[in-house]
């Protein structure tokens, strides 16, 4: 009888511990789910009410920080320490449309390299290893998660202070040319 009581006591504690683990994992999932949303601030004086929207990067946000080694073993961050703006281009392996964008990047580098730093983020090396050494690339799927990138290609323009000044989803190489040209013209007229 005494052995039975000891065993049932141990069994009960194991059951309680297992339940706690399940509740913990469940609460972790709920917290992760809630972090996918944020409140979109209404413009001052506007009639639009604040709304709960998916938590994606937006113009005006600070680019999430990271420091990783690129293919040249150089440490890169979202903002360029040399003071140029950074065009961060996200490409995925399964995105056929991204290939054209990657092929067009050397031309972008040749045209705007003095004013804009190009940084390519990929989930697979094979997609980006064709790039010339002067274009930094990182094979880091975690950065996709960090920036909550759901569509590719996506390009983000980040200023020298690390603030996101442009978000371009699905832009092809010609559109990226036009965007950078427009941005540089605006900067030149200031």
């Amino acid at each position, binding site marked *: 009888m005494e052995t039975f009581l000891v065993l049932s006591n141990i069994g009960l*504690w194991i059951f309680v511990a297992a339940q706690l683990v399940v509740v913990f994992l469940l*609460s972790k999932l709920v*917290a992760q789910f*809630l972090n996918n949303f944020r409140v979109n601030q209404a413009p001052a004086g506007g009639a639009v009410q604040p709304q709960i929207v998916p938590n994606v990067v937006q113009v005006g946000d600070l680019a999430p920080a990271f*420091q990783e080694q690129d293919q040249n073993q150089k440490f890169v961050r979202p903002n360029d320490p040399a003071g140029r703006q950074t065009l961060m281009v996200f490409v995925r392996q399964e995105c056929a449309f991204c290939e054209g964008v990657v092929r067009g990047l050397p031309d972008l580098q040749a045209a705007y390299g003095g004013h804009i730093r190009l940084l390519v983020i990929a989930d697979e090396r094979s997609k980006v290893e064709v790039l010339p050494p002067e274009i930094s690339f990182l094979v880091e799927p975690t950065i996709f998660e960090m920036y909550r990138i759901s569509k590719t290609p996506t390009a983000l323009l980040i200023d020298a202070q690390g603030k996101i000044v442009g978000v371009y989803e699905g832009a092809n190489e010609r559109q990226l040319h036009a965007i950078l040209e427009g941005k540089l013209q605006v900067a030149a007229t200031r």
Partner: protein
Amino acid sequence: MENLALWFQMVLAGLFLSTAVAKWQDMTLHIAIVQDYRIVPKSWSRFFGRAETVVELALAVLLLLGLFRSVALLGAVLLLALYTVAITVNLFRGRTEVSCGCGGAAGTHRLSWWLVLRNAVLMAMAAWASGHVGVLGDLQALFGQASWGEVYGFGFWVIAAMGWLAVLLLALGNELQAIRSKTHELMAKQ
């Protein structure tokens, strides 16, 4: 007394192990948080972030195995004192927006006096336990006169399980707190 010291030891071991693993999994973020504390020079932050995580992991392993327990517990006091000084300095600077960088079961919080109090309690636990270590759970005692039953008997496993359960409860509490804060943030502005 010996039982309570072992429970404290297991709680600290579980906490250190979970926080060290969380920091190691996202070292880039951890180094960024170390930089954000503005205590160590920026050029040292990479080394400091890694070294501090390795020390934390080593302490967790020593406490779990019951090796050099007094030294490991005093090491835990010193490490916690280091964290507390860094938090206090930033609180006096008024920088409460900084993330504590605790991670794991210790959760992710903004800096507050509550964290200083929590660390003070943990330091008191470690300091007290370092003076009350016994044969129970002491691996080194096995190399002396003690038997397996004395060191790793039923009592050891009950106390160790209670310690790990306490860490799990703490982690669950942090997750529920995170859910509560996020829900308030989303609902308050609707």
